[in-house]
């Protein structure tokens, strides 16, 4: 187990080095100049050149790359050009929101996808099953920004159950801030619940025909005890895989949803940074998000052993 873990962690460093290089290159290859964006319409070429020099953007690219890698290795992701603060601090300020938003979205996706997937598998071939599959297709086809705007229109503007946008006033309690995340979490979680639903249904169908399930039924156990206790546990590996993937997808999906709901999360930070060409933020945020993605994958692999005692590392 420890050898496996050490091997995976070493692999993570290689992946992160490649990510850092690709992110640096992509950020610089894309045309656009943070100094020009910052200065505004009336700025002349001389004004922009002076700001570029002050920001260190006039240095040769290889030198900028070496300085970037040196800083990353020492745990410093640099300072944001626009936010006037270290990238790590800017990310830290937004981490709470993105963490809760991802958590709530995954919870919603799992809460909808897993039970309905189980019911659909148990009632395979019935009208219920067909109806559920149809609804899942529909949910998977809905873009999260459209779901977001529709939820805002009806649940926030018409019924006023939830706030339209933002993460609460400065003195907001945690509960109030979480209330601001309900609609975005639904907008993010709903389309992804369809994916979990379909995987759950398929995984359950595979195990429901196994001999041990038939044996459990033959022992006289109730339908739902057989399904939830015997079948579900054995169907957990593919479900865990897709939940892990969904969590990673949701971090990326949050970029659009955070923009629609005006949420100051990591996704919004990345969008603003790309539009403004705030290179340190683009590089730092993508490095951190990639790191989380890799960690989630590692965690899912480790959870396999918990879900299935036959899995050994």
């Amino acid at each position, binding site marked *: 187990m420890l050898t496996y873990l050490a091997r995976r962690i070493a692999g993570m460093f290689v992946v992160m080095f490649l990510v850092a290089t690709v992110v640096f290159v992509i950020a610089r290859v894309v045309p656009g100049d943070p100094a020009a964006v910052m*200065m*505004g*319409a009336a700025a002349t070429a001389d*004004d922009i050149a002076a700001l570029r020099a002050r920001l260190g953007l006039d240095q040769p690219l290889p030198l900028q790359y070496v300085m970037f890698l040196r800083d990353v290795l020492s745990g410093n992701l640099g300072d944001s050009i626009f936010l006037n603060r270290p990238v790590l601090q*800017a990310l830290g300020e937004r981490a709470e929101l993105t963490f809760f938003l991802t958590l709530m979205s995954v919870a919603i996706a799992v809460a909808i996808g897993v039970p309905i997937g189980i019911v659909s598998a148990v009632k395979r071939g019935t009208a219920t099953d067909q109806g559920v599959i149809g609804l899942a297709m529909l949910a998977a086809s809905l873009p999260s920004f459209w779901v977001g705007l529709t939820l805002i229109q009806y649940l926030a503007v018409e019924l006023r159950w939830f706030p339209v946008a*933002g993460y609460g006033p400065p003195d907001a309690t945690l509960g109030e801030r979480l209330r601001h995340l309900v609609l975005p979490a639904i907008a993010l979680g709903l389309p992804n619940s369809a994916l979990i639903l379909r995987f759950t249904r398929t995984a359950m169908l595979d195990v429901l025909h196994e001999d041990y399930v038939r044996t459990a039924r033959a022992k006289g156990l109730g339908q739902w005890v057989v399904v939830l206790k015997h079948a579900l546990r054995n169907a957990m590996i593919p479900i865990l895989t897709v939940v892990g993937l969904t969590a990673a997808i949701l971090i990326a999906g949050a970029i659009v949803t955070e923009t629609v709901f005006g949420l100051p999360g990591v996704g919004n930070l990345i969008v603003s940074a790309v*539009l403004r060409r705030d290179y340190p933020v683009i590089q730092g945020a993508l490095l951190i998000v990639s790191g989380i993605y890799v960690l989630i994958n590692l965690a899912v692999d480790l959870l396999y052993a918990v879900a299935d005692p036959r899995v050994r590392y």
Partner: protein
Amino acid sequence: MHVFGFAKRLIATTAIAAAMLAGAMPAEAQNKVINVATIGEPPTLDPVGVTADLVSIITQHIFETLYTFDGSWKLVPLLASAQPTISADGLIYTIPLRQGVLFHNGKPMTTADVVASLDRWTKVSPRGKQAGAVIAGIAAKGDAVEITLKERFAPLLPLIAMSNGAAAIVPADTIDGANPLKQFIGTGPYKLIEHKPDQFIRVGKFDGYKSPEGPASGYGGHREAKIDEIRFVPVPNASTRVEGILAGQYQFADSLPADMATRFSGQDAVKGIMVRPFGFPLMIMNSKTGVAANQTLRQAVLAALSPSDMLLAGFGNRAFFETEGSIYPKGTAFYDAASVQGYGAADDKKAAELLKKSGYKGEPIRIMTSMQYDFLYKMSLVAQANLEAAGFKVDLQVLDWATLVQRRADDKAWDAFFTFHTFVPEPSLITFMNPAYPGWWDTADKKAALQAFNTEADPAARARKFAEIQKLFYTEVPTIKVGEFYNLAAQSKKLTGYQPTPWPFFWNVDLAN
């Protein structure tokens, strides 16, 4: 049993979460607080170095300049106590300062602070650099500040009065050469409380504020912070700004799409506001390099375009635009219809003749546009159709705004680009008047006309001289003004005393219960 245990825990967790959410209703605010939805996060809170309108909208509550503009766009004193005394040769401006004005740190404003602030402005601000080129010296003289010029320069005071690239007066000890401000201490009716990027900028009433004399008019006259706290909330998505104000989450929402004006009709709590004058879309031509450096070809472009179709495509709602060729709209001092020649011709035949005369050989005209400003993109599509109908070959390059702004600095990379300009009260503040601005309009005739305009102090004579510049604008066609457009904003009906302006401000504005 195991399954039911899990179910129990799930129910308990859900109940706790529900209780947390139920208790999350916002507490009754004791202070008067308003939320203003803005188009995004400002790049900085230092108003001197940048000309972004969003920076001005927020920072004008914190920082003040020596002069500002009243409701008729006339210059009035703000931190100055009166109009300046100008020497007979027009080279020395003596600006008397108001006494007893306090900074937000409690210290009084002194002539040393004003001299240091103006000095920094001439080195850092794009507007200040324009003035700095003709300023020989800035010095304290008793309770006044004396600016000595190398040559007569009439735009000096309008440049000092602008709220973007602003000559903001700050304490001398907060200035660190040309570096951006680290402390945001001004003399305005509101002081900075907290800035959480992408979340909010909070400004609160400054109890030590000393208002200028006289009745409120535009940005001038009496200023009073009636609202205790203003929160500028970045909401980049325009639809979300609309829904947010309809739901009562914001009390003011800026820059909304004109086609959403109908959403505010018949609303009990919210009303739409049209801001006019507001801005004008521009097709900037490259007068320096490439095919568009040919003046006759630029005249062919002007003849081919149909501004009314372009504006209709861009804004949809006819109430929000006007086909107007005069650089300044009706009702302003610099409006002149007589010198507008060739605007709105939409004449394919004339354009084709001019094109032939220019020696055009079918080279693609590279036009840069951006979807980040939807109206610019739609206008550029109509322009492309107009130009192709007249015989041009068009290479429409759709870029994101940051790329367009970078690429336009390279005179070999483009022939024309679409942008827009917010209304400014003084012609010398218009970007394309500056010969260094991309497009590089710098002919001998323009230089002479601009020099004559800039050195003329008499308002009526200045208007006449600006008409001469406009005549050249339509002969040399360095840029094509597409028309006038107006801004849609929305406010809560509880907000009283709000006056629509291109850079919305909230002093003298109150919030009814």
